[in-house]
């Protein structure tokens, strides 16, 4: 899909559901991803949005950038609120014959998803609500000042895990949320990235059709927190995928499918050295990361090659 350049993008809908004029930083990859998510969702959508960047930038009282039904929830309960809305719609359908085809979507950043809201999310996935959970992962608590989260990658420097003489920054590996979601045995899980608009739309459209819960994890480039030029947003996302740092894949009913497979991955160095948050890494540390990336990448490739019933 991503090789469909120049002409095909003209065929994508012009309709925006997140209005311009919001307060995102320049070069924000997350709001870009959000735009595509919304395009693919369409108007008949109810969004339950956890506290986080996208909530802060879009709804400074008394204004809003949203052109779909939207509710702001706390950090911890986006999935719980979505569960409630979905149950409410079901009741409306049952009692009043309400037939509108509305999709409930919960969304949050990596902190709201992998840290604070994980319990509510797990519950919602487990209960099997008909909803989509979208995680916009910019790899730290960016709007409060770049504090580390469990999605912050190994070696990244944040304000709460700064690099220096004593520490190399984040010293744990990034939490694999897609695998956690998939472990709930839900019908559809996928990863995507803000630099791949067609991939985002394709996966969201697919998720919209799924009956039951689906989970989409979108790596969203944050020039502010990653300390890279805001003009490099797209490039950075592409590098994340092309180096294998963040592979794009789907897990449909437990079956893995790698969407972008490269015969030869770029060296992770290309990705790491382009960002300020990794500036301090030594050659050895980069080599360690490189090794881990290859192991993880191969794992997914291996899973992808394994077909059901075999």
């Amino acid at each position, binding site marked *: 899909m991503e*090789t*469909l*350049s*120049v*002409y*095909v993008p*003209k*065929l*994508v*809908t*012009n*309709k925006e559901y997140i209005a311009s004029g919001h307060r995102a930083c320049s070069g924000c990859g997350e709001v870009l991803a959000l735009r595509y998510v919304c395009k693919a969702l369409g*108007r*008949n959508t109810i969004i339950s949005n956890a506290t986080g960047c996208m909530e802060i930038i879009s709804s400074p009282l008394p204004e809003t950038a949203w052109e779909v039904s939207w509710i702001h929830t706390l950090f911890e309960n986006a999935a719980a609120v979505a569960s409630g809305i979905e149950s409410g719609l079901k009741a409306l359908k049952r009692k009043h014959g309400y037939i*509108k*085809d509305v999709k409930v979507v919960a969304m949050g950043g990596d902190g709201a998803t992998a840290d604070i809201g994980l319990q509510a999310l797990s519950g919602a996935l487990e209960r099997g609500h008909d909803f989509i959970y979208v995680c916009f992962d910019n790899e730290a608590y960016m709007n409060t000042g770049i504090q580390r989260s469990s999605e912050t990658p190994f070696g990244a420097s944040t304000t709460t895990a700064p690099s220096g003489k004593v520490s190399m920054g984040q010293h744990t590996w990034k939490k694999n949320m897609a695998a956690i979601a998939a472990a709930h045995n839900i019908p559809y899980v996928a990863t995507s990235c803000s630099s791949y608009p067609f991939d985002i739309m394709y996966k969201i459209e697919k998720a919209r059709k799924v009956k039951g819960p689906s989970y989409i994890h979108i790596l969203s480039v944050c020039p502010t927190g990653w300390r890279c030029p805001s003009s490099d947003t*797209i*490039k950075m996302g*592409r*590098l994340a995928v*092309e180096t294998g740092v963040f592979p794009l894949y789907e897990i449909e009913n437990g079956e893995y499918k790698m969407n972008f497979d*490269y015969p*030869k991955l*770029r060296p992770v160095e290309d990705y790491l050295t382009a960002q300020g948050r990794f500036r301090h890494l030594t050659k050895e540390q980069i080599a360690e990361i490189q090794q881990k990336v290859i192991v993880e990448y191969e794992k997914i490739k291996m899973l992808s090659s394994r077909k059901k019933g075999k």
Partner: protein
Amino acid sequence: MSETVTLTIDGKKYTAERGRTVLQVATDNGIRIPTLCHNEAIEPYGACRLCVVEVTRGSRTRIVTSCLYPVEEGLIVQTASDRVIRNRKMLLDLLLARCSENEVIKNLAAEYGVTQPSFRQEYWEKNDCIVCGLCVRACEQVVGVSAISLVNRGISKEPAPPFLEKATDCIGCGSCYYVCPTHAIKMEDKNGVRRIHNWKVEFKLKKCSKCGIYWAPEAQLEYIRRKADLPVGFFDICPNCR
């Protein structure tokens, strides 16, 4: 500010800009009208007829296609009246008989309770294409190439390359593939080659001289290069490596 009109859709009043179509105004306001042959970037065509609605103007009520019908002051629109549903059902019945194994059509038909065609089974067909013309129109209006066209007429009408052979003007951009509502156009990128089977064409994909990734068909890049008068070799490197 352009002129506005007030119209009623499904019992609710809406204000809309003059010149917009009923479909646009309904969609903007969250009223879902099914379509197959419609894309915002392409002129409306009115072939699939799925977007039919019932309009009343004065004492006259009739069925029209909402993708083409311009909004008017005082117009009353019903998007899901019995008559509309009856017509949509029959359309899906006809489409299902034509495309009895196509998933998109099957799902859409099922949404309207049509699970199998009303016609004798010996006449069911297994097409994927519904001749909505989106591929042809995208190629003409969006890409500006017109490598394919609708050939023949009546029941044998189909989108096809000239002389039913290789589409020599095709640049392999894939717009037709992307825009096709029923996935009737088969395209694949494999080993540095893009094939669009319907038009009997294949294209070498350009390999970025820096990162080695295949990033776009060479023919398309050459077409753009010439059109924009760019230097030779301009596209040797992919946008990521630039």
